[in-house]
């Protein structure tokens, strides 16, 4: 079984140290994600979701525990991983055009020019920005910037995709389209997706499982399986009673997390 585990987070702890202010962001996170799984993470603001994602991405040193990706401990950003940062605006290179931003990682990957151009065009098309390829990021609206960051990640065709509230800045309709885009890609490419969101409906709609995090210092409050059929669509899935049941459950969990409820120490 262990060979189907893509991501193994064991006893993860992270404390931010700065002179005069130590913040224990994550206390003890343990969970596993199978290869090709789509897992959503929800939790109160400031719980440590971004911290967790950064740790998995190999961008932060851990204070304790271990993260293994495909069996090897993560100490630096692993290959084939793409991250959509919560600070989408700051994660775009202002000196490059939208096209340049999407293209750069592909260049780094060593793709030929023609292949790059095709992938860039396709990705920009998918996020609804075919016309803005030559604009600079700071000439775009917030939502457009966020979509560029998403386009960059999907054009990269990663094997692991980490997304940190990637749809926070787009309108409802675009959001729905992007949700479907993520699911399509996930199914097509078999990519392992870890998706942080504040939208509980979204987490249930997208995920195969929803990890609900507790208040800071963070532990896993509950690992909610989403037993909805794999074929989902915005209308029918969202109106199914099962969906409502799960979303209500998750909602209650988040509320209790917010109130400071924590699982019994085992």
């Amino acid at each position, binding site marked *: 079984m262990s060979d189907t585990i893509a991501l193994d987070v064991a006893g993860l702890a992270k404390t931010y140290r*700065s002179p005069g202010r130590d913040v224990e962001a994550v206390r003890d996170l343990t969970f596993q994600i199978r290869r090709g799984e789509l897992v959503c993470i929800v939790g109160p603001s400031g719980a440590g979701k971004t911290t967790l994602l*950064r740790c998995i991405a190999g*961008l*932060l*040193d851990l204070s304790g525990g271990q993260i293994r990706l495909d069996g090897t401990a993560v100490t630096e950003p692993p290959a084939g991983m793409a991250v959509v940062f919560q600070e989408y605006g700051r994660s775009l290179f202002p000196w490059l055009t939208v096209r340049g931003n999407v293209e750069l990682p592909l260049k780094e990957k060593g793709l030929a020019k023609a292949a790059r151009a095709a992938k860039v065009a396709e990705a920009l098309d998918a996020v609804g920005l075919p016309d803005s390829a030559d604009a600079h990021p700071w000439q775009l609206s917030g939502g457009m910037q966020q979509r560029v960051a998403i386009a960059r990640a999907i054009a990269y065709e990663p094997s692991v995709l980490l997304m940190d509230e990637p749809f926070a800045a787009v309108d409802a309709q675009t959001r729905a389209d992007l949700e479907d885009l993520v699911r399509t890609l996930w199914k097509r490419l078999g990519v392992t997706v870890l998706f942080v969101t504040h939208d509980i409906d979204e987490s249930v709609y997208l995920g195969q499982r929803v990890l609900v995090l507790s208040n800071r210092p963070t532990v896993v409050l509950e690992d909610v399986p989403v037993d909805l059929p794999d074929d989902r669509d915005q209308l029918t899935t969202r109106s199914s009673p099962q969906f409502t049941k799960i979303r209500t459950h998750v909602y209650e969990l988040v509320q209790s997390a917010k109130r400071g409820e924590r699982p019994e120490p085992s």
Partner: protein
Amino acid sequence: MKISEFPRRILIALGLPVVLIALWWFASAGSTSFFWPPLSTIVQAFPETWTADPLLHDVLPSVARLLGGYLIALLVGVAAGTAIGRSRTLRALCEPVLEFFRAVPPPVLVPVIALFAGYTGSTSKVLTIALGCLWPILLNTVEGVRSLDEVLLDTARSYRLGRVATLWHVVLRGSSPRIAAGARQSLSIGVILMVISELFGANRGLGASIVQFQRSFAIPQMWTGIILLGLLGVVLSALFRLVENRSLAWYRGQRDAERER
């Protein structure tokens, strides 16, 4: 961990200098060249050359002038730089003239300053130092002010922060990393100009002494002077770092926040 930190930092700070000094020592040990005396000779000459009297009457006044000029440059540079950085009109108006004066070498500019500020005495020397230190501070302030984040400026405007508050809390703080870059650069330029200014109408001073040693072919002594200049630079820069670390703590923290490794 905290305890082992201190010796480590000392080692890091002093490691390379020690190696370089050792290299110099051995490379120059058998030197017979008149202008490249052995380091041992220079070290011997040091205490003889820099006794209390020259320290008090040469080095101290020089350093005082240096600090005076530097502070003037800092004040004027930041003030003018902010004004020029904020106003396109002012920038267009001033830039060519400023660039003109920036390009004029001090050896030919100093006599002109002297024409106004007097040939002897400290005024023209302080002015010379100030004028030389001004440019990096001015340029960096202008660029720092120009590259302020628009969202921050918009925030300040929308909350109707007053002119003074905007300048103080937003513009200056926001451009302070760049101002610091300029101020640091100016520090060593100030030391250089301290020497140059004392070529004119001086009879004492650290710079004048060095030139004097050079002219009277007291080469080991000249080297001690150069070393003293270097040490002065190190001390000033350490002081600068102290101030910078306090006032730019936020910047360091922000830039290092996610870069823990």
